[in-house]
C-alpha cells in the first residue's frame, strides 16, 4: 500500500471528523474557562504555590525571631537559659538562605516566560526549565542541609545547656550519660530526618514529577538528533 492511498483515506476521514465535531465560538469559549492540565501549566501552579510557601515561611520567621515566646507570653514563659546571640544570628542566616533560594528560583522562572517560549521553541524551553530546576534542586537541598545543621546545632546546644543547668547532687555515671546522650542523638536524628523528609517530599510533589515528565518530552524531541 502506498502512502498516497493513506493520504487520501486520511483526508477523507478527517474532513468527516471536522464536520461532525465542529464547535461554535460559544462552546470554544466555554472550554477556555476550564483549568489547564498540561505539564507546563501545572509547573506554573507549583511555582505559585512556592510563592505562597515563601510568604508563609517569611511570616513565620518574622514571628519566631521578633516575637519569641518570652515576649508573647511573659507570664507563662520564664526563660532560665540565656540563648546565645550567635544562635539567633545562625537562625536568621539559615532562614534567609532558604528564602533567598526560593526567591531566586521564582525570579529566574518568571524571567524565563516558559509558556511563551515553549510555543516558539519547545525543545529550548524544556532544556532551559530543566537546567533551572536542576540548579534549584541543588541549591534547595544545600539550603535544607544548612537549615538542618542549624536545627541540629540549636538542639545540641539546648540539650547541653539544659544538662548543665540541672543541679544534681551526685555526678551521674558514665552509663547514664551514654544512655541520655544516645537518646538525645536518636531524637535529634528523628527530628532532622522528619524535617528533611517533609522538604524532600514537598520538592518532589511540586517539581520532581514534572521534571521527570519534561525529561521524557525532551528525549522525545531529541530523538531526531540521533
Amino acid at each position, binding site marked *: 500500500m502506498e502512502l498516497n*492511498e493513506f493520504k487520501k483515506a486520511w483526508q477523507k476521514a478527517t474532513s*468527516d471528523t*471536522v464536520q461532525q465535531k465542529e464547535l461554535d465560538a460559544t462552546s470554544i469559549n466555554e472550554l477556555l474557562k476550564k483549568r489547564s492540565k498540561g505539564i507546563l501549566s501545572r509547573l506554573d501552579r507549583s511555582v505559585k504555590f512556592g510563592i505562597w510557601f515563601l510568604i508563609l515561611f517569611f511570616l513565620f520567621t518574622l514571628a519566631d525571631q521578633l516575637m519569641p515566646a518570652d515576649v508573647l507570653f511573659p507570664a507563662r514563659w520564664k526563660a532560665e537559659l540565656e540563648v546565645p546571640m550567635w544562635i539567633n544570628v545562625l537562625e536568621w542566616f539559615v532562614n534567609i538562605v532558604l528564602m533567598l533560594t526560593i526567591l531566586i528560583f521564582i525570579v529566574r522562572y518568571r524571567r524565563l516566560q516558559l509558556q511563551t517560549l515553549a510555543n516558539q521553541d519547545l525543545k529550548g524551553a524544556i532544556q532551559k526549565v530543566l537546567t533551572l530546576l536542576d540548579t534549584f534542586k541543588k541549591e534547595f537541598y544545600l539550603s535544607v542541609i544548612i537549615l538542618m545543621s542549624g536545627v541540629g546545632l540549636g538542639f545540641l546546644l539546648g540539650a547541653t545547656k539544659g544538662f548543665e543547668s540541672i543541679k544534681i547532687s551526685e555526678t551521674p555515671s558514665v552509663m547514664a550519660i551514654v544512655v541520655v546522650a544516645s537518646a538525645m542523638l536518636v531524637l535529634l536524628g528523628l527530628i532532622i530526618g522528619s524535617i528533611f523528609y517533609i522538604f524532600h517530599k514537598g520538592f518532589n510533589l511540586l517539581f520532581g514529577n514534572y521534571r521527570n515528565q519534561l525529561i521524557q518530552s525532551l528525549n522525545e524531541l531529541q530523538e531526531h538528533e540521533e
Partner: protein
Amino acid sequence: MKEDFLQNITQNQGIIHKVTRIYCDNEDDRKDLFQEILIQLWKSYDKFREQSKFSTWMYRVAINTAITNFKKEAKNRRKSELGKEIYLLEDEVYDYEKEEHLNLLHEAITQLTGIEKSIILLYLEDKPYEEISEITGISQNYVRVKMNRIKKKLEYFVKSRERN
C-alpha cells in the same frame, strides 16, 4: 482580542481535531487534548505576531502541546489497545477499502514516536517540507531524512500485517 481569537479558532479548529486524532487513541484523551491545546493557544495568542501564517502557528502550538502531553497517551496506550477504535467513514456509498486503509494507517501511526507523528500528520495534510520544517523546528534536510525513515517504518508495518 478574544472575539478575534475565537473567530480564528472556530475557522481553523480542524487543525486541533487532526492533531488530537494523530496523538490520541481514544475519545476521552482527544477531548482532554483538544481543550489543552485551546488553552495553550489562548495563552500565547498575544505573542502571535503574524510573522507566520495563523495555521502554521496553530500547528506549532498544537503539536508542542501534544508532545508535552504525550506521556498521558503512552500511559493509556495499553488500555486503548484493548478496545481499539475502528475508524468509520461517513460515505453514502460505504468504502471498505478506504476504511481498511484508515485502520491500517491508525495502527501504523501508533508505532511512531511523538515527533514522527507530527511529521506524518503534516505530510498527510500535504504541507511542503518548508512549512513542516517551520512548524517542527527541524531543518528541511532532516525532515526529508525523517520522512524516509517513517515511510520505511510504515512499509515494514504494512508488509508484516499483510504477511499475517
